[in-house]
């Protein structure tokens, strides 16, 4: 499996990462190197093997339905570049 230049631009756009045309060939090379590395896994026969979800068998931890977090709006927006009355502000998006 490998990606072409169009796919690289598309992936970048889906992740909202600005990628200039000059960067595309380089990124394409890097992505394809990663894919080629991962591709080695397809050599392993996994017929009848359940996907492993944890190293030792365990059940998912669950929480009880109590409110014990939140009410920290100052902290939540603390690092935001732009805020107003505890709202995050982002460049206008309208569908």
């Amino acid at each position, binding site marked *: 499996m490998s990606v072409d230049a169009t796919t690289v631009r*598309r992936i970048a*756009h*889906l*992740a*909202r990462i600005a990628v200039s045309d000059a960067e595309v060939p380089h990124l394409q090379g890097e992505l394809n190197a990663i894919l080629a590395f991962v591709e080695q896994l397809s050599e392993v026969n996994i017929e009848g093997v359940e*996907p492993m*979800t*944890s190293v030792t068998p*365990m*059940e*998912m*931890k*669950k*929480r*009880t*339905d*109590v*409110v*014990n*977090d*939140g*009410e*920290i*709006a100052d*902290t*939540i*927006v603390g690092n935001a570049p*732009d805020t*107003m*009355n*505890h*709202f*995050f*502000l*982002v*460049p*206008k*998006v*309208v*569908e």
Partner: protein
Amino acid sequence: MNAPAAPHKLIKGATGDWEVVIGMEIHAQVTSNSKLFSGASTAFGGEPNSHVSLVDAAMPGMLPVINEECVRQAVRTGLGLNAKINLRSVFDRKNYFYPDLPQGYQISQYKSPIVGEGEVELELDGGRSVTIGIERLHLEQDAGKLLHDQSPTMSYVDLNRSGVALMEIVSKPDIRDAEQAKAYVTKLRSILRYLGTCDGDMEKGSLRADVNVSVRKPGGPLGTRCEIKNMNSVNFIGQAIEYEARRQIDIIEDGGTIDQETRLFDPNKVETRSMRSKEEAHDYRYFPDPDLLPLEFSQAFVDDLKAQLPELPDAKRSRFITGFGLSSYDASVLVAERESAEFYETVLAGLADKARDGKLAANWVINELFGRLNKESMDIASSPVSAAQLGAIVDLIGEGTISGKIAKDLFEIVWQEGGDPRELVETRGMKQVTDLGAIEKVVDDIIAANPDKVEQAKAKPQLVGWFVGQVMKSSGGKANPQAVNDLLKSKLGI
């Protein structure tokens, strides 16, 4: 796509009849105290970003831990929809970029949802019914809220809803017209509210529907569908479907083709319109969320929840019909809202003779009480007449202490002034007169005062009605109507 052949509305076009095919995705907010994967509050409203934990804001290094109550709520809902419960399900990441989604992905369930196929039975007008298949139900996170009208250049982001648990309930494309679509949403909402798994408050957005609409010649191949997004009113859903079906038919009959697209319904113009075209089709790149193990539970866990389920509308409805002789229509009216059903059940519980007066009680709840509440734009929670008071009025009618007509006066007094109906009947002298001697005297007086009418009545027996009216009037409505009727007939010789 062989939907049950229930009678449904076809739409006339220039080239003949068209059938509408509808499938729905309902997003129902799970009733829980805290969010699906964090301990922040789910309370509606609240100051901006107050009900937000570091998990909900997707701060680096934060890990989701699932709320066990949300799992129980999803299973309860699945059981209420007669659906298959999957003892193992998987959470996936649905990736997309938008400012209301700080993680950059929504945690959802894709290939392995918690609930599989089920069904919902709809009762339609005229005693018709139809079964709508449920494809699946899965758990997922809600997104935050964006405000666009606060500034000309910026959008405001509030993450209070971010991470609140939603159930997405997907129907099969079994719905065939706007009436069925409205009945489906209403029924689903009713089931959810009986179960207590979603408050069903559509105005607050607790229940939203995406509606997939396509048209075809009856029995023909499926047409291309359009999805109308995010509707939060049953009436809007009906209007949107009517409009959208007509729009598609007109395009096809004019030789055009339908583009598969997402549309929005504008309630003011009563039309759907295309959402500004996206630069590219959605590509969610689903993959299993590596932060979460598969969700697993035992059949015993499911059985335990099943044993504790409340009685659902369908079961309640048939119990009302078989137990108290209610009409199918009356029973449906009573069970449609959980509060109405509970009110009626409280009235029933207080009755001296349920078997005798259960149906009478239903008439009074529906016609007198609901009628009056509607007229005054009040809901049942604020009813000035309590279930106990209404039950007492029904008892008084049932045992023959007051007539139905006097009961209406009594209802009015209780509505206006309150008080114990039985006492009011005593103190205000509203008791029905069943003493034959007393009634006979009134009858004799009326007959004596109207010799001409007596003559006419001999030729025209229907005139007895006039006499009954006079006697009732003269007795202030308290005479037992049957006794009056019998006496008059024998005295007038008719």
